[in-house]
């Protein structure tokens, strides 16, 4: 891939990430950290391709663990984030307030 095209992609992605976070209320910091943790689970795709490239036995073994770890990142990240955000659903918010 062209070096400069990659540089543009990196630059724009970096600004996007910065923008997304800059307006987040404190209450969502933990879920968002968890959510971004899930998003880098896309490393799974790379791990699969790495297994594809692997030829020797040692490469295969490392590739196997790459996929295993990446799948853990993606699946675990999803479940944990989903469970946290589940609690922010508006319909679960109790209407009762103040006791008057």
């Amino acid at each position, binding site marked *: 891939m062209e070096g400069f095209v990659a540089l543009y992609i990196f630059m724009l992605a970096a600004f996007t990430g910065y923008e997304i976070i800059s307006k987040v209320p404190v209450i969502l910091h933990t879920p968002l950290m968890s959510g971004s943790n899930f998003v880098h689970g896309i490393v799974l795709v790379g791990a699969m391709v790495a297994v594809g490239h692997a030829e020797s036995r040692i490469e295969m073994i490392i590739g196997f663990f790459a*996929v295993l770890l990446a*799948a853990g990142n993606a699946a675990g990240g999803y479940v944990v984030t989903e469970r946290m955000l589940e609690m922010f659903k508006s319909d679960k918010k109790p209407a009762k307030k103040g006791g008057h």
Partner: protein
Amino acid sequence: MDFIIQASYFAAAVLFIYGLKKMSSPADARKGIVWAGVGMVIATLVTFFHPAIHGLDKVIVIAIAMGLGGYLAWTSGKKVEMTDMPQMVALYNGMGGGAAAAIAAVMLIRQDGMSQTVQILAVIGALIGTMAFSGSLIAYAKLQGIMRKTIRFPMQQLVNASTFIITVILGLMIAFGGAEYSMGTLTIFFLLALAFGVMMTVPIGGADMPVVISLFNALTGLAVGFEGYVLENPAMMIAGIVVGSAGFLLTQLMAKAMNRPISNVLFSNFGEASGEAQEVSGTMKEIESSDVAVMMAFAEKVIIVPGYGMAVAQAQHKMWELVKQLQERDVTVKFAIHPVAGRMPGHMNVLLAEAGVPYDIIYDLDEINEEFATTDVTMVVGANDVVNPAARTDPNSPIYGMPILNADASKNVIVVKRGKGKGFSGIENHLFFGDNTRMLYGDAQQVAGDLVSDIKEI
């Protein structure tokens, strides 16, 4: 087929950004993770048709690894208590870093036809991915209580710095060595990077773990982004770098809330004040649960300051019950949340949301700090450093300068605490010795339960 794969990756990248954007508003947050999840499934499925993956044996290897890793993480993520979420994020993050490092390892072992730029980025990704892997596992072990000790020894910074420098030199040899570097160099490089991740995390105290986890999250993102370039995969590049920059900003926000630069969190041995810390005068005065019940029941305004102790005791449900009791007696009750209360920013908010506490009685530091002066009873539940007045008054205190909740300004302070110890950071808390402070010892859940029944009897 190539067009479909590329189009799917593009769609996945869009869904990730859209999902993260949604996650930044409380009402739509849950939809955000679902959209990002859809992106992940699409990207994963089309990758089975990637030209590099040929032959049934490889598909089987991938399927077994994916099934195993995915199953273990999914079930553990489902089972874990809400209070243990921070360490799970650390664990899953470490796995991602490890995966990025493993990808780099496969590509570097193969040694074939990488351009100079690709080779450099593969090495950088390997270095930070490996650090994030071993560092996150240590963070996990610390929060999970597997590893309680904070290991510090003389010249530690020097040893760590030398390890890092040697690792970087080996990295440079590999990155600029064309195809000349030996397998030995590569192995030592990875081992040293692993060791450095452990060594840099081991001396950091548990109270600083949220900042560290957030930093490792950002590092994993970067590693994934760089390995994405190596594999010519734009979805990985975009998702990785977005997470990387978002993660660094989040880390900064957290460190700012503690009023400590990130370098300070990482490299200063927290808990070892430079000068003599001020002597604390006075004694800790104990109080009975029934007296607290009377005090709270006849107060006009009560503020509750939750901390990690509430999380450990799983006391959020009982606390909410207590608050409802008080509200029935027309007591105004508010929750005051310090940005770094608990083990992650927003940790307390998540727990209170789980218990069903409405958002509108939960306040941030800035919103509520003025109000302590007009509050009858402030109840500190398992929080410590975030209410320590030493942060305002004692320049020798390790937490000097950190913005705190001014609980000491209220008329009465009740501190719910398990025992008389100094708590997680090991810093003496001046609040506990104040004239207006009473200590209520016990497990937070037990205490809240007692208070509920005591108030009912009044």
